[in-house]
């Protein structure tokens, strides 16, 4: 009797996984199509434990969404508004200072900074923003600006992508998040986000960023109109770029939230889909160190379960998550360190507080000295 899989078709894939043989596009599709959720999960868990054992990472972070004004107005977004709309906002540098100072007593290690493509900011705003954060939080790492924003900033500054990155790096940029990738399908892009940079451009920018020594994450927005084939192709495109640069740190599947968007007729993603996207990413992205279960999008409960389906990172404590909550997310807006550690321990894993580059700050409640274990990704 086969105790590992209900779907025998998974056996061949498992043989590859055990031997470390890279999975093909067809394997990826089979993984998406099988009803054997736990079979897929078991394989992903195998890979996850080979890489990370029982460790489950999180970061003490703060989100800053500096503006919701965006000229792109993608159909899947509930966050963006036009400049004259009610609720439109832009945080000036002194607003940013206030938000940072309001939490200055907390041990924030990472600032996650993303925003809309504001039509009338100049490049200095962005370098000032970074410098301000570095001044107020000198030891925290800044993870800021998606590939989409970098493309926009390059246009604003009149500088090449390389020079834009170089200027931002000088101002304090440590890392970039992986947002804005959506699904790299021209078909989907034309329908949902025609103004946003195309997939190949997103990849080109990421390649330049990696070559400039800035690591980034990567994402995929799923659960809207994309096909399973488009998902697999997206993951394979990321895997190919990673082969060339090694610059991706974590992959984060992003569950689409439709409320308050032009696609509000679409139902929420299901748990099966959420868990499968995590597990399949873990299996296909054999050259990525980390797979995140982003609790804001899939909920705290499922994110905890996802630690058994290939995820090794729960993202951050996050203070003031705005973007997904505009689209109807019912998760908390922030979790405390205790919440985070309890979630991880209750699932049978060891909580590891990390910095942006996965340097270990605290393992199982015990601080690790600066000269102690260091991670990778920097």
């Amino acid at each position, binding site marked *: *009797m086969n*105790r*590992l899989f*209900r779907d025998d078709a998974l056996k061949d894939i498992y043989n590859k996984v055990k031997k470390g043989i890279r999975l093909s596009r067809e394997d990826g599709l089979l993984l998406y199509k099988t*009803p054997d*959720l*736990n079979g897929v*999960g*078991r394989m992903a*868990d195998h890979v996850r434990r080979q890489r990370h054992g029982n460790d489950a990472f999180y970061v003490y972070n703060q989100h800053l969404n500096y503006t919701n004004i965006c000229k792109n107005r993608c159909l899947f977004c509930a966050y963006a508004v036009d400049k004259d709309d009610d609720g439109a906002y832009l945080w000036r540098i002194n607003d940013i200072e206030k938000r940072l100072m309001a939490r200055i007593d907390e041990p924030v290690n990472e600032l996650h900074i993303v925003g809309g493509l504001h039509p009338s900011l100049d490049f200095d705003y962005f370098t000032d923003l970074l410098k301000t954060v570095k001044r107020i939080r000198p030891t925290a790492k800044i993870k800021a600006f998606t590939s989409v924003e970098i493309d926009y900033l390059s246009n604003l500054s009149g500088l090449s992508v390389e020079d834009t990155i170089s200027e931002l790096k000088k101002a304090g940029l440590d890392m970039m998040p992986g947002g804005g990738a959506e699904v790299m399908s021209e078909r989907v892009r034309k329908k949902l986000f025609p103004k946003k940079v195309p997939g190949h451009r997103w990849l080109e920018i990421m390649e330049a960023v990696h070559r400039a020594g800035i690591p980034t994450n990567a994402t995929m927005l799923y659960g809207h109109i994309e096909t399973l084939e488009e998902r697999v192709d997206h993951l394979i495109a990321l895997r190919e770029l990673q082969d060339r640069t090694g610059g991706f740190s974590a992959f984060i599947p992003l569950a689409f939230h439709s409320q308050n968007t032009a696609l509000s007729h679409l*139902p929420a993603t*299901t*748990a*099966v*889909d*959420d*868990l499968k996207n995590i597990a399949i990413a873990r299996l296909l992205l054999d050259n990525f160190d980390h797979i995140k279960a982003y609790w804001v999008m*899939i*909920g*705290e*409960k*499922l994110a*905890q*379960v996802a*630690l*058994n389906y290939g995820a090794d990172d729960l993202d951050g404590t996050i203070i003031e998550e705005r973007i997904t909550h505009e689209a109807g997310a019912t998760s908390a807006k922030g979790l405390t360190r205790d*919440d985070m550690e*309890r*979630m991880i321990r*209750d*699932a*049978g894993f060891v909580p590891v507080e990390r910095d942006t580059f996965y340097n270990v700050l605290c393992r199982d409640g015990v601080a690790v000295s600066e000269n102690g274990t260091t991670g990778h990704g920097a």
Partner: protein
Amino acid sequence: MKAIESIIDKIYQNVRITIDEGFFLFNHADLLTLAGMAEHKRFERHPDRLITFVVDRNINYTNICMSGCKFCAFYKTPESGEGYVISRESLHEKIQETLDLGGTQILLQGGMNPHLEMSYYIDLLKDIKANFKIHIHGFSPPEIAYIAEKSGMDIAAVVSLFREAGLDSIPGGGAEILCDDVRLKVSPNKCMTGPWLEVMETAHNLGMKSSATMMFGHAETPHHIFEHMDKIRQLQDRTGGFTAFIPWTFQPGNTRIHHPGTGAAVYLRVLALSRIFLDNIDNIQASWVTQGEKIAQTALFYGANDLGSTMIEENVVASAGVDFMLPEKELRRLIETAGFTPHQRDCYYNLL
């Protein structure tokens, strides 16, 4: 590792596991190992990829309760003046709405209300049966034990009277944890383990069916969970009267127990182990009311074959600040997108 492997072998060989073996798996087995065994047991018993549900409504005839359980956010004390007893008009309206929505049963439960006499309950049941063709799943064991004590009757007499008046089956509520050391801590005024089991055994012997529940994640230790399930399993060996087992987690909002709440991983471990441990109970129900629809869907891969009720109305868990709503259409979608076929059932798990 060897110990785990030998227990796993027993499970695949259909040998019953002991309390200590269940407890050992709870502490040491990987989540997906438990899931795999629970799925195996589920498909052995129910080879079709069907997930059942019932369309019903929770009707709480009163919220006035003497029990004052520490985990409850629903009750009002008799002295508070804030309680209610449902009016006949409102009751009829709720039942008619249930029938109009395709409902087949009501879950009729209430507090241990000192102002209600035996005649109230008998009239209530007769009135419903006289006016509606609907299954009454009602009066959990603590209510029956309380009514028996208050009226100086024995449990068997009350169950018989209720049955004659129209009670069809008994919900497994109020079981909490069937260990008196835990009950004394969280619900000292409610019936202890003995009477709870006695009500069920009596009802089963009269030919009535019931469900069994377990509320965990409060004052119990994990070992209590297996003691609880063992008591259910033993009774089931004698009567075969339990249709389903429904584990659910304590919801700490608005209650007097300070507990951070039980996470999904522990819920799924317990759910899977209930499918594995309770080798004589047909149906294991996932609790979307306490877990939300994502974990309820995940639970279908942890041994659950039933999603309980669409719950046109639910008040008790909602008072603890947990408010998951799941209309039938959504319930069906949740089942279908997990690769299963939804099917409405009645209280006896007959397909409709």
